[in-house]
C-alpha cells in the first residue's frame, strides 16, 4: 500500500514519537509510570492482553479443578467398621458432611464461569487486539477518546479486584448466571455475593466505554479514502460488537444493581415472597447475556476473516455479506433471549422465541460459507494462524449447529440444563472465540512485540489444543444427551467413563496452552526479529513497523486499494518474487452462439 507524502508538522518536543511504542523510557520506575498513565491505545491493548490472559489462566485453573472433582462420583458408603465414608470428593471434603465438598464444587464452577465470562472472554479480543489494531487498521493515531480508554482499563482492574476480593472472601456458589431467588438468599450473612455481583456490574462499565470509544473511532477517524466498505472485516466485527456492548450492557447493569438492592435492602422485585418475580430476573439477565454471547463471538469472526484472507492470499469471498451478517447477528441477537427460559414461558412466547432463534443461524451460516469459499483455490499457507482459522471453522460449526436442537422446543425440553448445553456453549465460546483469539494472537504477535514465535511449536500447540478440546467436550455432548445434568458434583456410575474422558481431555488442553505460553515467552526473550510484514498482509497495520511507532504511522496513510486486493498489489515491505501477483487466466473461448 502506498502512502501519500503528506508530512505531519514536526513537533520537536516529541522526539520519541518515532521510537517503537514500547521503547523503554530509561529506568524501570519511569517505564511503570509511563505505562500506568499512558493513553496510547497500543499500550492499553497490551495491558489488557496480559490481564485477560492472566484471567484465562485463573479461570482455567478453576476449570481443571472442576474436571478433577468429576473424575469420580461422590459416594457415601458404610465400611466394615460401621463408619460412614465419603469417597470421590477432592476439594473441601469433610468426612462428616457430604454437603461441604459439594459446596466447594459449586464455588469452583461459579468461579470458573464468572471469571471466564466477565473478566476474560467479554473483554478478551476487543479490549486487547481490538484496542491495539482498530486505530491502526483504519489509519488513525489513536482511538477517539484516549483518556476514556485508559479509564476503561482502570475500571476493568477495579472490577476484577472486586471479583478477587469475593473469591478471597470464600467465593460464590450461585453459578455465573446469579439466578434468583438462590442468589438473593445464599450466604445471606456475607458480602461476597454482593462483591461478585458488583464486580460484574463494574466490568460492564468498562465494556460500555470500550464499545462507545470504538464506535466513535470507526465513524470519525478513518483515514482519508477509507470508506465503510474499505474497512477490514475485523473492524466490522468490532463495530458490531461495540453496538451490542453499548446497547445490552446497561440492562445487565440495572439488573445486577437490583440484585444488590435485593440482597441489601430486600426490595423484593425478584422475590416471590414480597410479590416479585424471579423469572423477571432471568429475562433481564438474558436480555443482556444472549446478545453478549455475540460480543464474544463477533470479534472472533472478524479475526477469522482476516486470517483466512491473508493466509490463503485471496480476496475475501462475499465481503459485504460478511460485514452485513455481523450487523444482522447483532440485530437479531436482541430478540432471542427467551430461549434460555423455554421451560418458564407460555407456548406462544416459546414458539416465537424458538423461531427467532433459528433466524440467528442464517447470518452465522452465511459467514461460514463465505470463509470456506474464500479458501477455495487460495494459495493456503499452513502456519499457526491458518491452523487456528481452520480449527475455528470446524469447531464453531459444531457449536452453532448444536445450538439448533437447543432452539427447538421439543428437543430443548430434554437437553435444557444438561451437559449438552455445556458442550454447546463451550464449542462456540472456546472452540469459537478462544480459538480465534489464539489465531489472532499468533497472527499479530510479530506486529505487537516485534518478534516472531516458533512456527513449528505454534502448530504443535494448536494441534494439541484442537485434539484436547474435542476430547473434553464431545464427551460432554454424549453425557448431556444421556441425561447428565449440569452443575452437579456427582453422577450415576454409568456416566463415569465419559466424565473421565472429558477430564483427560482437559489435561491435553492444558499441555497445548502451556506450549503456547512457552512459545510466547521464548519469542519475547529470544525470538527472531519480525519484519514489518511477515505474512504479506494488505491491511494498514502491516505498513508500519513491527512494533509500530508511537504515532502508528510516519505519515497519515491514504487508502488506495481494498484490504483484500491480493490479486492487484504487492504487499507493503514485501518482495514481488515472494508474493507474486496471480497471472490472469487466459480468456476462455466464448460459447458458440446458436442462432
Amino acid at each position, binding site marked *: 500500500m502506498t502512502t501519500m507524502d503528506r508530512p505531519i508538522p514536526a513537533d520537536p518536543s516529541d522526539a520519541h514519537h518515532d521510537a517503537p511504542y514500547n521503547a523503554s523510557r530509561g529506568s524501570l520506575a519511569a517505564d511503570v509510570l509511563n505505562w500506568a498513565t499512558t493513553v496510547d491505545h497500543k499500550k492499553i491493548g497490551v495491558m489488557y492482553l496480559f490481564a485477560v490472559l492472566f484471567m484465562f489462566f485463573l479461570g482455567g485453573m478453576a476449570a481443571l479443578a472442576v474436571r478433577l472433582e468429576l473424575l469420580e462420583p461422590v459416594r457415601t458408603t458404610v465400611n466394615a467398621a460401621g463408619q460412614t465414608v465419603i469417597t470421590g470428593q477432592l476439594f473441601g471434603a469433610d468426612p462428616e458432611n457430604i454437603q461441604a465438598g459439594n459446596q466447594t464444587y459449586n464455588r469452583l464452577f461459579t468461579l470458573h464461569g464468572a471469571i471466564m465470562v466477565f473478566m476474560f472472554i467479554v473483554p478478551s479480543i476487543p479490549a486487547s487486539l481490538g484496542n491495539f489494531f482498530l*486505530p491502526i487498521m483504519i489509519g488513525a493515531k489513536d482511538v477517539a477518546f484516549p483518556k476514556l480508554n485508559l479509564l476503561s482499563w482502570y475500571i476493568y482492574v477495579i472490577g476484577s479486584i472486586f471479583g478477587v476480593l469475593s473469591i478471597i472472601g470464600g467465593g460464590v456458589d450461585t453459578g455465573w448466571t446469579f439466578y434468583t431467588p438462590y442468589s438473593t438468599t445464599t450466604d445471606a450473612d456475607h458480602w461476597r455475593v454482593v462483591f461478585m455481583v458488583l464486580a460484574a456490574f463494574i466490568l460492564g462499565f468498562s465494556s460500555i466505554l470500550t464499545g462507545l470509544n470504538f464506535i466513535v473511532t470507526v465513524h470519525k477517524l478513518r483515514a482519508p479514502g477509507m470508506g465503510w466498505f474499505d474497512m477490514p472485516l475485523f473492524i466490522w466485527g468490532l463495530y458490531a460488537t461495540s453496538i451490542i456492548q453499548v446497547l445490552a450492557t446497561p440492562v445487565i447493569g440495572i*439488573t445486577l444493581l437490583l440484585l444488590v438492592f435485593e440482597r441489601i435492602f430486600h*426490595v423484593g422485585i425478584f422475590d416471590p415472597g414480597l410479590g416479585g418475580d424471579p423469572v423477571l430476573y432471568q429475562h433481564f439477565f438474558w436480555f443482556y447475556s444472549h446478545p453478549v454471547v455475540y460480543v464474544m463471538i463477533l470479534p472472533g469472526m472478524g479475526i477469522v476473516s482476516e486470517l483466512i484472507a491473508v493466509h490463503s492470499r485471496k480476496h475475501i469471498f462475499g465481503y459485504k455479506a460478511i460485514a452485513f451478517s455481523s450487523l444482522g447477528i447483532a440485530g437479531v441477537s436482541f430478540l432471542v433471549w427467551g430461549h434460555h427460559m423455554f421451560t418458564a414461558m407460555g407456548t406462544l412466547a416459546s414458539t416465537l422465541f424458538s423461531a427467532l432463534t433459528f433466524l440467528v443461524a442464517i447470518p452465522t451460516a452465511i459467514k461460514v460459507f463465505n470463509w470456506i469459499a474464500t479458501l477455495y483455490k487460495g494459495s493456503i499457507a499452513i502456519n499457526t494462524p491458518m491452523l487456528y482459522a481452520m480449527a475455528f471453522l470446524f469447531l464453531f460449526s459444531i457449536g452453532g449447529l448444536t445450538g439448533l436442537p437447543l432452539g427447538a422446543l421439543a428437543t430443548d425440553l430434554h437437553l435444557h440444563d444438561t451437559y449438552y448445553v455445556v458442550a454447546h456453549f463451550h464449542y462456540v465460546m472456546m472452540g469459537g472465540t478462544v480459538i480465534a483469539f489464539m489465531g489472532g494472537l499468533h497472527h499479530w504477535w510479530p506486529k505487537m512485540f516485534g518478534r516472531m514465535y516458533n512456527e513449528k511449536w505454534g502448530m504443535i500447540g494448536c494441534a494439541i489444543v484442537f485434539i484436547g478440546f474435542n476430547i473434553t467436550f464431545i464427551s460432554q455432548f454424549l453425557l448431556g444427551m444421556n441425561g447428565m445434568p449440569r452443575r452437579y458434583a456427582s453422577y450415576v456410575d454409568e456416566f463415569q467413563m465419559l466424565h473421565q474422558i472429558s477430564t483427560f481431555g482437559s489435561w491435553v488442553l492444558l499441555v497445548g496452552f502451556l506450549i503456547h505460553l512457552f512459545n510466547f515467552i521464548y519469542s519475547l526473550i529470544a525470538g527472531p526479529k519480525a519484519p514489518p510484514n511477515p505474512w504479506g498482509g494488505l491491511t494498514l497495520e502491516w505498513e508500519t513497523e513491527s512494533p509500530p511507532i508511537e504515532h502508528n504511522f510516519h505519515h497519515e496513510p491514504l487508502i488506495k486499494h481494498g484490504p483484500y486486493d491480493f490479486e492487484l498489489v504487492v504487499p507493503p515491505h514485501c518482495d514481488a518474487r515472494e508474493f507474486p501477483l496471480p497471472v490472469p487466466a487466459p480468456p476462455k473461448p466464448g460459447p458458440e452462439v446458436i442462432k
Partner: protein
Amino acid sequence: MTAINTDKPVGESAGRKQMPWERYVQGHHWRNAEDEFDAAKFGMWLFLSTEILLFAGIFVGYAIMRMLHPQAFSNGSHYLDVRWGGLNTVVLLISSWTVAMAVRAAQLNQQKWLRVNLIITLICAIAFFSIKLGLEYIPKWSVGKRPGALFNYPFASDPYEPMWWSIYYTATGIHALHVLVGAGLLTWVLVRSFKGIYGPKNYAMVETSGLYWHLVDLIWIFLFPLLYLIH
C-alpha cells in the same frame, strides 16, 4: 481546521489579552477541531442511549409489577403529592432551558451569561434534590413507607404496597443519583468557565454536559406521570 496554532494570536493583534478558549487546539490524533467536536457529541449521545436502556430496565420492572399488583400501585400513587412532583418537574424544565442557554452563551462568547445560566441550573439541581429529599423521601421513610422488607407503614390497605415503594425508591433514587452526577459535571464546567476555557471555539464540554442534563430531565418527564399521575 480553524484551530489556531500560530505565534501571533488574533486577540492580541486586536489589543486585548487572548482568552484561553481562543488558544484551544484539538487533540493530537484529530485531523481538525470539527471532527473532534462531532465525536464528543456522538460519544455523549451513545452514552445517553446506554442511560436510556438502564432506565428501560426500571420501566419494564415498573410495568410488570404494576400488572401483577394493580391495587398496590394505585394506592401508591395516591400516597404521593402531585404538587411536589409537579414543582420538581417545573424546576427541571427551567434548568433544561438555562443549560441550553449556557451552551448558547458559550457559542457567542458571552462569558457572564454562561456562568449565570450554569449557576441557575445548579440552583435548580439543588432545589430538585432538596424537594425530593426533604419533602418526599424523609417524611415518607419516617412513617414507614419503605421499600420491600423494610416497609412498616401500619395503614397499608394492600399487602403489596411494599413493592410499590421498592419501585418508587429504586426509580427515583437512581434518577436522583443521576441528578447528582449531572450537577457534578456542571459544577466542573462552571469552575472551568471562570478560567475562560469555554468559548466559540471550545464548548464541547458545555454542550455534552448539557446533553446529559437534558437526559436527566427527560427521564424525570417519564417518571413523573408514571409515579404521580397514573392512579
